[in-house]
């Protein structure tokens, strides 16, 4: 079952709980995009480990981001929670 989603550009990469890549699909979720996305290089969705959250990383060079933001599920608005839950439900394999 998908444990992590990584959105890079217009591609969503899916990983299981061992962080093994499951597959990649085109990203297409307008609600999610308008709710969370900006100029990040990488948007990571942790489904449960270490916690349910969204991480955004900026200016990644050689695997190291210049900066990042962390948004815990518990800190999200209702609209954000809805957008995240809908995305996870629609994309989990």
């Amino acid at each position, binding site marked *: 079952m998908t444990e992590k989603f*990584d959105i*890079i550009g217009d591609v969503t*990469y899916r990983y299981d709980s061992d*962080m093994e890549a499951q597959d990649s699909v085109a990203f297409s979720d307008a609600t999610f995009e308008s709710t969370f996305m900006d100029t990040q290089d990488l948007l*990571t969705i942790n489904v449960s480990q*270490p916690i349910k959250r969204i991480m955004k*990383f900026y200016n990644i060079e050689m*695997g*190291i*981001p210049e900066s990042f933001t962390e948004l815990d599920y518990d800190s999200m608005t209702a609209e954000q929670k809805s957008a995240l839950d809908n995305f996870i439900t629609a994309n989990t394999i």
Partner: protein
Amino acid sequence: MGTHIKIKPYIPTTPSEIVEFDTTDPNLGGTIFTPDIQGATNTLYISRDPSTIGQTWVWNTTSNTYETYTVDVPDSTPFWLYGTTIDAGSNKTAFIQRNGPIFINSAPSNGSRYAGYFYSRATSGQGSGVLIRKDSRTTSGNYLLIQGHDFSTNISVDKLKVDHNGKLSINDAYTLPNVGGTAGQVLTDDGAGNVTWQSGGSSGIFGIANASGVYTYYTTLTLAMTAAVSGDTIEIFADVEETGSVTITLKDGVKINGNGHTYILSVDDATNALTMSSVGTYDLYNWNVKRTGRTAGTTTGYTFYSTQTSAKINFLGVNLENTFGTCYYGGGQIKNAYGVGYLNGLYGGTGSYPVVHNSYFESTTSGTGMYVPYTNIYNSTGVSNSGIGISCNGNVFESMGISVSNTGIQAQRMNKCIGISTSGKGLHGGSRNCTGISTSGFGGASGDFYNSTLISSSNYGLSGANAYNCSVQSSTSIATSSCSIYNSTIRCLWNNVGGHCTITFALGLREIVNSILEVTNSSAYCISAYVGSTWKYANNSFKGATIPINPSLIQGITNTSDSQGNILI
């Protein structure tokens, strides 16, 4: 003054006109004369009837009949009338012949520098020419020769000679072939005067220089490779695109210098651009080789295809590219290569395996930058977008693997390597003196890690592994998962109550010995594990935690230290 009487010497005369007839006697009715001159004086009539061939007759104006005519034959006659043994005598207009050589000896004077010359001039509408014919019943000594002789040195030189095979030699310096060449061929001297037809021209895209630096040119790389022998260098002087099913099979010892030009094979079939099928040494320089023309994702049709493991391929300044599939497929001792493929950069095929030195291979999509089964990779870089940067079931030394969404390097053993991934694992497998970095994946996973650094921004620094003398860090997640840790530094920078240094998700023994474990959130544990787990931990230093060890964790060490401080854990 006395009177001088001039006595005209007797000069036997012979008929000057020759007419042939087809019977035994020209007096017979129906006789055909050639030319048709009949009953003429000063004319010799020669029989061509088989029973009397060569018998001669003249016209008797008294009897008006033909009479046989015979003259005495001198012992040595200079010339005969043609076709007879009759001395030509004073006849200066007849067609004459002689057996034996003719020597013309004349001192040049007054502008005439010729001992003699043959001259044939045509009247209007007729052909003209000079014929020199050498007959012989054998061939070996049968030739035509014009020779020059230097009196001062008494040396003769064959100025022009046509031998029995029809080969023309000039000045005894070089010999031309006796057959024509094929289209586009040129005459080439081997330096010893043997001139032969060779493919190519005075210029061309592909050239091979001889020892004197003189090029022979070829219109295609195939022709050049066919002509090349070990030690040759094929030079390329322009960009080339092949659109047919053309495979260039490299030869042992034959080098190719691309001079910075590009060779493109664009055809929609499984043809490989370059192939290497035998053990040997292959050097390619300063060249771009591109395989294109197929639908993206097609697996066959490689830029470079090799079936040999031990053949040596040295790429110096060579760029290999494949726009739809795999760039390099197969084995070989690969040095200094640079290859980019849509599917795979390098894929060590079945049956032959590559050993890679100082090379760079990249997959632009989901393939492997560099896949090397069973053998080794040295000082190289593998890059992939959503595949593994370097995948090796053998050893990887001083190399770098980079992947956007997959593992940087996955190998049985790594030494002095760097694995980098944006969302996958930095390193996967045992490593020594390595660095694994990932933004959202594991810094490292699986195997024994010695003297290595494993870093993740939002995931485990190390997972499912043993760390010896390592430095492990996570910025926004638990530092390690399911690891035993020895003499290492473990840091969790995540300011969260869940920001532990260790974690497991099932019962299982782990060991944490002689290490430093640091957390950022004071409520987090330096050592945490699945509830009810038994771990062995000793001689550790904890930092940042109010309660460093999860109270649910059971100490698995039951022995105590001896008087020297040693303990069996």
